[in-house]
């Protein structure tokens, strides 16, 4: 009992507008939705599409089949018709192209023509929304409200859009109305319709991040955009001349006392690697969001991959403690990015937060977040706990030296140094101090390790079939496990959010007892599987890998799993 909509067209045709409107309207109507985006590295032309899945409860990931195909151009139809079912419907503009004779599922709606009638070609998308709504047997109330809100300060546009909406609705009704039946709506409380980057931007702001410097790079630009739109909250957003500058600015801001972050993708992060090492040496807190996309080099700039885990784990010359966390799903990401800031401040280390295009651009109907749960402790020196003379790198048992800010205490100065240094921060070259400082820094790993959360075990608690995953594949793997369990299997998913230091307890306990294990990763080499082996000596039986730049679908995983069990 769910409906799957795919809206496709050229870049610039407004696929995004249609899904945004539809998605939000459905949520406001009490349904759960889940949305993902597939787009090309260009601004006009080509082929982009979005998948919207609607159900009683919020779905966990996109589905492969399509019930309603909104085909803004002919290519969309050609590329996606294999996903259509017998009862599916194709919304298209007969003035733009026609379907093959044998195609019975067409629901011709002259989008452009109706839009012009309503007041302008730009409203073709609104016409399409109306058409989809009627096919689903929905009324237009929620969509109308939304249009009123959206165009509140654009004179005349509300009326015209409402017109367009109704025209689409009426026209499509001629083909079929309510030909898809939606389940009983279930969402009681309000939900948010928000995507991954927006969640991260909001979490950063609420976590007290007040300085972001970044250089635009897909798929992380959305985080910068979000924060840039929130400068009235006192956040400084500075577009750097390059990623090297970005991370170094961020380190300067953090050193001077502000929670700071940067965001980028693998290629931009590559340029920050020396800065990561600097953060390690100077013990300057920093959060770096790395939105993964397929590499190497420029790769597929607008698509998804989990190919940079090993890279970020070892990025930076020399040895120093770091944490690597990942965005698992939207709710988790909100709190986990906060944890990233907390760990960075507490341990005075670089924390890398891994996302990917699939996470960044996917939206779901999520429960509002609990802002009170955010931990914003800064772990800074205060008059009471300051030992004078102040020494930035005082040896301590847990490796953490009290952090004072430059200018904070009259009479005291703070010296950060990228060379090996003594407690005061001055350059040294002697072997003993070197040894002690290395040990001091690495001692933090112990505390850090204790902060790591074990992976979630979802499904059977004593599984004989175990899927292992990390990051953004959670939703899809969860659905896969649900399907497997429906088939009566003792199946479970072990899914990692915190990746480094790797929490190994659960996996060490479970893996030896499991009959068949699979590591499922959106990359070509199985990087988590390697990490697991390095950290536990245990090997997973099989790897299910996808590296074509597209996110997994449950059926793809099932197909692989079935080869072995």
């Amino acid at each position, binding site marked *: 009992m769910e409906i799957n909509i795919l809206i496709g067209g050229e870049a610039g045709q407004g696929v995004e507008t249609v899904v945004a409107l539809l998605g939000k309207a459905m949520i406001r109507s009490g349904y759960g939705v889940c949305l993902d985006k597939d787009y090309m590295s260009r601004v006009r032309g080509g082929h982009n599409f979005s998948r919207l899945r609607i159900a009683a409860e919020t779905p966990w990931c996109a589905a492969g089949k399509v019930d309603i195909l909104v085909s803004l151009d002919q290519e969309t139809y050609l590329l996606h018709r294999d996903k259509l079912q017998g009862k599916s419907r194709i919304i298209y503009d007969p003035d733009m192209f026609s379907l093959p004779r044998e195609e019975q599922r067409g629901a011709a709606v002259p989008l452009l023509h109706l839009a012009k009638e309503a007041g302008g070609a730009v409203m073709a998308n609104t016409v399409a929304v109306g058409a989809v709504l009627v096919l689903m047997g929905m009324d237009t109330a929620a969509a109308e409200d939304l249009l009123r809100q959206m165009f509140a300060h654009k004179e005349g546009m509300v009326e015209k859009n409402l017109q367009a909406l109704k025209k689409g609705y009426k026209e499509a009704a001629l083909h079929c109305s309510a030909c898809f039946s939606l389940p009983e709506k279930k969402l009681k409380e309000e939900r948010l319709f*928000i995507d991954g980057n927006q969640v991260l931007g909001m979490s950063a702001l609420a*976590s007290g991040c007040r300085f972001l410097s970044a250089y635009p790079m897909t798929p992380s630009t959305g985080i910068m955009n979000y924060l840039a739109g929130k*400068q009235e909250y*006192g956040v400084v957003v500075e577009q750097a001349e390059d990623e090297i500058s970005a991370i*170094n*600015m961020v380190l300067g801001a953090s050193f001077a006392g502000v929670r700071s972050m940067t965001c980028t993708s693998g290629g931009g992060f590559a340029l920050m690697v*020396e800065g990561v090492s600097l953060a390690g040496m100077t013990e300057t807190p920093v959060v770096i969001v790395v939105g993964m996309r397929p590499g190497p080099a420029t790769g597929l700039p607008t698509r998804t991959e989990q190919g940079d885990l090993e890279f970020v784990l070892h990025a930076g010359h020399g040895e120093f403690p770091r944490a690597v966390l990942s965005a698992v799903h939207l709710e988790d990401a909100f709190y986990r990015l906060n944890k990233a800031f907390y760990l960075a401040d507490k341990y005075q280390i670089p924390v890398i937060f891994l996302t990917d295009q699939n996470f960044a651009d996917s939206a779901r109907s999520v429960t509002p977040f609990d802002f009170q749960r955010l931990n914003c402790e800064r772990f800074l020196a205060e008059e009471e706990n300051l030992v004078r003379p102040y020494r930035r790198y005082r040896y301590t048992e847990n490796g953490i030296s009290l952090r004072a800010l*430059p200018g*904070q205490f009259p009479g005291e*100065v703070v010296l950060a140094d990228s060379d090996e240094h003594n407690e005061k921060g001055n350059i040294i070259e002697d072997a003993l101090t070197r040894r002690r400082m290395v040990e001091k820094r690495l001692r933090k790993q112990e505390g850090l390790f204790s902060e790591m959360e074990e992976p979630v075990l979802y499904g059977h608690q004593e599984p004989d079939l175990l899927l292992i995953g990390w990051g953004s594949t959670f939703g899809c793997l969860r659905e896969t496990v649900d399907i497997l369990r429906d088939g009566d299997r003792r199946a479970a998913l072990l899914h990692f959010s915190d990746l480094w230091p790797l929490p190994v307890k659960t996996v060490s306990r479970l893996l030896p007892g499991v009959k068949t294990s699979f590591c499922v990763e959106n990359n070509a080499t199985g990087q988590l599987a390697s990490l697991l082996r390095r950290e536990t000596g245990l090997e997973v039986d099989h790897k299910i890998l996808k590296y074509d730049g597209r996110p997994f679908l449950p059926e793809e995983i099932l197909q692989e799993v079935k080869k072995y069990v």
Partner: protein
Amino acid sequence: MCNASCFAVDEEIAWCPGCGNFAILETLQNALGELELLPHQILLCSGIGQAAKIPHYVRVNGFNGLHGRALPPAVGARAANTSLKVIVQSGDGDTYGEGGNHFLHTIRRNPDIAHFVHNNQVYGLTKGQASPTSDPGMKTKVQTAGVILSPFNPLSLALTMGAGFVARGFSGEKEHLKQLMKAALEFPGYALVDILQPCVSFNKVNTFAWYKQRVHILEEHDPSDREAANHLAGQWGERIPIGIFYQVPSPTFESRIPALQEESGQEPLAYRSFDPAALAHLQEEFK
């Protein structure tokens, strides 16, 4: 408030005897001593090189970062805490070579930073390779047939990029240099002082005597005259002018960032408190 000796530290200095850096260090301490500043109010950022060791020799806050990356942390720090007086000090290789891109774009930003470049026309710490400012023809272990790249003129470049304060000093003219440093420190916005500094170990061309013979203090120059400044900046050779070439303030980076304005908070960003719970309304737009 605090004279030069406030800024002295008890660290062994790792420069060669006779190096021009000593005079620059001393002059910096004197300049700071003459301004109304205390050590904890100052942040000195540097990169890596001989010159870049300077934060270890002055009693102020310091961020001794990466080679070529002295400027970006300084900009970040200014945003984080506008009550800090920020100085950036580094070598010519650091600033104009590895750090060239930051040099360009920091000028475009115009943060309130005093930038003192120890320009010895050579890579000192790595033992004598050509730097961007090395004179053509200078031979080194790498430039075995002499430097062939045309030299980088920091003053002309800064002027072209729109810097509001552009000056040149010489470590052998300490009193004059002190005045330049003070003026740069008091200038609201990005202020470059390129400082000619003999490297006794590796630069056998541009020696103390070489500079001494050539430098002359600018006189009767109107530092608001951009054309004249440009013209003077082009001079290099038999006569090398030192002094303030150009000085015309324009709005700083900090003064144009919404979050750093008075309205937006009384305190520097670093000291503002925040309450996550008060931001729950951020969710409204997604409902």
